[in-house]
């Protein structure tokens, strides 16, 4: 779900960079309020690297396989660190594997990063209820994982289809958006179930990772 170089007009690319600058500034302001920022930077950095590596795992869905995006999970685990982490991950992918690109880095960061922040807020709601916490955690884990991916996919499809060609027919644009969202909808369910399984595993094995 990366928009490559050359697909978007410069005004969209520059707007993407401006928005990314604003969201990064806001996240860094929140991070600055962190009492233990110096200790949390190595944690966030290694988790960034771990998410980057984990996104390379192939989940087999015959006859093909998919890579998970993990932006919802990153939001749930990293909080405000998730946006800079995604920005760094996208930068690595652009320069190392040519996924995405330098001109579209800002746009891609907004597409994947802002749903991660939304997922963080959503996942934090599990502290609201003291009873039935495991059930609520399951629901919120699914919603964070699936919702973040679906939100990213919606932004990606709309941006790509509406910007790719000025001569494209409006009906063709609408059809293309719905087709791509259908595909991403299935992946969103898989990502949601995967997030539930992973959060449940972390709760049993390393609960402090969810509360740090």
């Amino acid at each position, binding site marked *: 779900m990366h928009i490559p170089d050359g697909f978007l007009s410069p005004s969209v690319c520059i707007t993407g960079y401006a928005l990314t600058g604003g969201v990064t500034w806001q996240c860094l302001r929140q991070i600055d309020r962190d009492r233990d920022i110096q200790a949390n*930077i190595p944690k966030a950095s290694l988790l960034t690297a771990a998410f980057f590596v984990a996104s390379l795992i192939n989940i087999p869905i015959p006859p093909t396989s998919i890579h998970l995006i993990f932006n919802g999970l990153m939001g749930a685990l990293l909080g405000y660190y998730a946006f800079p982490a995604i920005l760094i991950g996208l930068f690595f992918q652009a320069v190392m594997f040519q996924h995405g690109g330098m001109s579209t880095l800002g746009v891609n960061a907004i597409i994947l990063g802002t749903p991660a922040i939304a997922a963080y807020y959503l996942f934090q709601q599990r502290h609201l209820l003291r009873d039935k916490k495991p059930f609520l955690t399951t629901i919120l884990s699914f919603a964070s994982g699936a919702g973040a991916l679906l939100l990213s996919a919606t932004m990606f499809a709309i941006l790509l289809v509406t910007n790719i060609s000025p001569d*494209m027919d409006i009906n*063709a644009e609408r059809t293309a958006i719905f087709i791509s969202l259908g595909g991403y909808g299935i992946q969103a369910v898989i990502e949601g179930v995967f997030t539930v399984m992973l959060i449940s595993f972390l709760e049993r094995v390393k609960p402090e990772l969810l509360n740090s």
Partner: protein
Amino acid sequence: MKLILDRYAYLDSPLHRWQQGYKLIGLLSLIFAFAVIQNIWLLPLMVIITWVLFSLSEIPVGFLIKRLRYPSWFIFAVVILLPLISGTTPILQLGYLTIKQEGSWQAILISVRFFCILTVSLVLFGTAPFLNSIKAMRSFGMPRVIVDMTLLSYRYLEELGEMLTTMQRAMKLRGFKARGFNRRTLKVFAQLTGSILIRSYERSSRIYQAMILRGYGSQISKKKQKKIEFDQSDRYSLRATITVVTMAILLIVLEAILPSFP
């Protein structure tokens, strides 16, 4: 997982001698100028500039082709689809399919722009050690949190990649084989991902202790830092940057004044 970006970072070409801070300014301007291009007449000029830069960098063509492999699938899909769904002027009828002029030009424009930007990006980050690129960005005022996170993530990326390979090998040795898509397979992959996250989390605590012992968090004189990383006396780099920025401005001016392609 091998991060082969630095493989050709230590050659001795005119692009390698260009200081990374200056190179970032010059080539990023060029990348944005390429993104501006909508006029088909300017595509040959873009390709020539890209070809000259790539030739000067002395990076082997095979390295570029290898890098193009994955993103080219996306471009391939666009090149196939756009002429069929975009535009109104038919140029060719193939059974039920009509190839349209506007969509075809758009597909060419996007492909050439993509190829040129990707090549310039590869020249930008492939002709200097990756750490120099981060240092150059730091000298432009990139926030400390992002610089620290980038450097630490980069440092452990390869190790965590090796860890993943070892864990996947161990899973295979214990008889795991992903047969189709089912709940059990997904659960095993979730536990594998969880294990990587836990291992990296535990490791980060030890790394933090080691960083504290080595003076992490103590302030370095900014004046001294800038002097090391962004040496403005480098005339060669300055001249190269002015040349490339001028080319970028020229491309944008030509885009504005040249009549657009029908």
